[in-house]
């Protein structure tokens, strides 16, 4: 089976990596995007970006940076999935949540017995079956009402009068009272479905509640190891994705170093697109010389100049990645070891083939 192609023609991996290095060397602003890869792949990608003066961005940076922006603008109080599972007597679910995010959280009875679950704007059918040992209460509104709903709730918690709100005053007060009565409350959200101001309101509500009791947030991580890649970016460059290395030091700008904007505007003239967990195509339609490292079955709007088929992390090869249920980086053995190329191997080979480039200090 072929694993590497140049302009659609099968080649050896070494030739593909040499061609990738040639493209990176002759371009003016390379972007390493997608970044759907494990920790080793992220380490290799950032090291390559430092050498090639490239920009790094993750395909889920929008959601990632939404949580991060609230944290780095205002701060945050959060807990781990494990603590929430063991201790949360009140779970406040905020907005639509991914289907697979709740079972781990809800499948155990909390230490203190009963658990109250309040779901604001669920936007879908509630989970069936015995997934939690408590009562469920929903506030069925469209998710676009969340900002005012949370504002009304925060006002009620603070004992302030509430004016026009998409919820009856009595219901609002009842929810507020339940939050205040929580002994270890936890608010769960997915930044993929909330905007930054809603998130900031929610995190402010959590802080307010801690004046009298304990309440924490539990942000659910985006897919494609985005949280793992964020951690690697943090220790290697001090900065999250959407960071550029072109000026010999790391500089971060969520607008300037947005890969999609860089490609659409024509600023980027070469892209390394990485999507190992699944064959996600890049989100732009404009043609740009592309080195693609993806899982099987990828369809691109424009054929990549170089394409390398990489193994699925944790399936085809052992992996270190963010483990959502543990809230941390963890090692996982492959479930079906095959001889495949890892993202890190391909990127390291490309870096090794960069002939004369000067190492750029971070």
């Amino acid at each position, binding site marked *: 089976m072929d694993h590497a192609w140049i302009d659609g023609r099968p080649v050896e991996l070494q030739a593909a990596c040499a061609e990738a290095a040639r493209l990176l060397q002759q371009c003016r602003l390379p972007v390493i995007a997608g970044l759907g890869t494990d*920790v*080793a792949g992220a*380490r290799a990608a950032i090291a390559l970006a430092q050498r090639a003066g490239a920009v790094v961005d993750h395909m889920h940076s929008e959601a990632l940076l939404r949580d*991060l922006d609230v*944290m*780095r*603008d*205002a*701060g*945050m*109080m*959060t*807990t*781990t999935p*494990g*603590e929430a*599972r*063991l*201790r949360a007597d009140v779970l406040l679910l905020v907005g639509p949540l991914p289907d697979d995010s709740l079972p*781990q959280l809800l*499948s*155990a009875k909390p*230490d203190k017995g009963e658990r109250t679950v309040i779901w604001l704007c669920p936007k879908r059918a509630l989970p069936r079956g015995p997934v939690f040992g408590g009562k469920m209460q929903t506030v069925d509104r469209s998710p676009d009402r969340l900002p005012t709903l949370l504002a009304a709730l925060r006002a009620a918690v603070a004992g302030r009068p509430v004016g026009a709100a998409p919820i009856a005053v009595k219901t609002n007060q009842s929810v507020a009272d339940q939050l205040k009565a929580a*002994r*270890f409350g936890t608010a769960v959200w997915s930044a993929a479905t909330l905007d930054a101001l809603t998130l900031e309101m929610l995190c402010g509500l959590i802080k307010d509640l*801690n004046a009298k*009791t*304990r309440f*924490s947030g539990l942000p659910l991580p985006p897919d494609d190891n985005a949280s793992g890649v*964020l*951690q*690697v970016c*943090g*220790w*290697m*460059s*001090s*900065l*999250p994705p959407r960071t550029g290395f072109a000026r010999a*030091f*790391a*500089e*971060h*700008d969520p607008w*300037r170093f947005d890969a999609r904007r860089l490609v659409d505007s024509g600023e980027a003239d070469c892209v390394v697109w990485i999507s190992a967990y699944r064959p996600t195509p890049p989100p732009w339609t404009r043609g740009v010389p592309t080195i693609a490292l993806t899982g099987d079955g990828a369809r691109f709007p424009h054929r990549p100049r170089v394409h390398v088929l990489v193994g699925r992390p944790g399936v085809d090869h*052992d992996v*270190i990645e963010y*483990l959502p*249920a*543990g*809230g*941390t*980086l*963890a*090692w996982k053995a492959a479930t079906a070891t095959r001889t495949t190329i890892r993202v890190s191997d391909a990127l390291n080979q490309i870096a090794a083939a960069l002939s004369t480039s000067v190492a750029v200090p*971070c």
Partner: protein
Amino acid sequence: MLTRIAGGRVIDPATERDETGDVWMRDGRIAAPPPAGTQPDETYDAAGKVVMAGAIDIHSHIAGANVNTARLLLPEWHRAAAARPAGTPLSDAGWPAFATGYRYAAMGFTMVVEPAVAPHYALHAHLELADVPIIDKATLSILGNDDFLLRLLGDQESAYAVRDYVAWTLQTTHAIGIKVVNAGGAAAFKTNARQFSLDDVVPNYGVSSRAIVKALQRAVDDLGVPHPLHVHCNNLGLGGNAETALATIAAAEDLPLHLAHIQFYGYGAEGKRGFSSAAARVAEAVNRTKNVTVDVGQVMFGPTVTISSDVLRQFNAHGQAHPNKWVIFDGWGIVPYEYRADNFYNAVQWAVGLELFLLIDDPARVFFTTDHPNGAPFTTYPEIFALLMSRELRAEWIARLPPAAIELTTLPSIRREYSLAEIAAMTRAAPARLFGLNDRGHIGLGAVADIAVYADDADRAKMFRAAALVFKDGKLVVRDGRVTREQFGRALTVQPGYDHNIDHRLRDYYDERYGLAHDFMKVPEAAIGRPEPFELVPCAS
């Protein structure tokens, strides 16, 4: 490969050597002088310079998920959209992993202990440390607020069970020792406790802070782990908390105990603000209690960020966040803070740290730390060495501080000045002994050839800021304060044995309580991404 460092003043307290002479290295180790007439492959001239073993920092928060949270909280403190002006917070501190290794090496440090790794985050910490170049490193794993241990103690299980659990944790997380942080305090905070002292009982578990400290201290000692239990006491930062420090020192009884960043517990409650120096009393207790060691956690003025697993303390301090943003996580709290020379409390803190350094007689029992970055970034070390070595310099600093603060300390009356040999004892010989590293911290035959050579400059800060030469494993890595060669060190670990029954218990526990495999926190050597990432330190059996 035979290398000679020629004609320097060799200061090596561990071998009681302080003389002008040569140091010989062969294949990464200190070698005996060869027969007369043998030509070395390389010679480095150290005439007029001071030659010491590489320095060891025993407590510096340089890596892990908590440190990474602080990095991501403060993008404005490193080069962001605009190039950063000089003198902004931590601008010199080497914030990413790579720079951390470079900056430490430039000062002649060859090993650093990351002292606060929650076991669930051990793999993350080791991955970061693997990207810290040049220096060796080690981690302390944190126990004492974890549900499993508190249940063991609450159920009055045997000391064997505690010991097995501690050993399992050390093995699984590849740590060199165990730290306890405000024992039981973080667990109590989960039930909404807002203060917690040594004899307070953790709600729901029925076990006191003291009992947690004693159980862990005994387990570490029974296992023969060289580094004694590393204790972050209760009541950090509060006026009058010297009582907590004294009580904890007394609680050590006959077994070894290490008290971390004792400066933050050196406070009396005198004066109209109820905040004064009690350093003299604490130092006196340390001098008297030979089985206790301490590190200082010196404060220096300037902006920094506090990173601590003492979640309770960090939550209570959030009102002082500067800039006004902070993160509290069940595991750690991050609160940016600025120590100001014109702030009464900060001036007292600065003085308390120096008093402790100067009033504790034995430089081998008081260790040099700023609790980086909690008291100050590690890049302030050269200034602190200078302050310890010159009472004149201290007087200059004192003159710029609020007199009302200084009046509540004994610092102006202290005449002691550290000698170079005492600095070497505090930063080389003693730390190696504290961690059971027989082949580090000295320049004796067979030691790892980690060597720092400094110009003997009267300006001691200048001297220690940029080593003239640094050798790591016998290879030249720094010249005139600049890294000349990048290589990677190892993480030192202990691997005490345990009864594998604990494995089964933990498997059931994690499965039932967390819905996770109990080995999700393991640190597979092959996954670290560096050849030979670990080095084993033997336990006394």
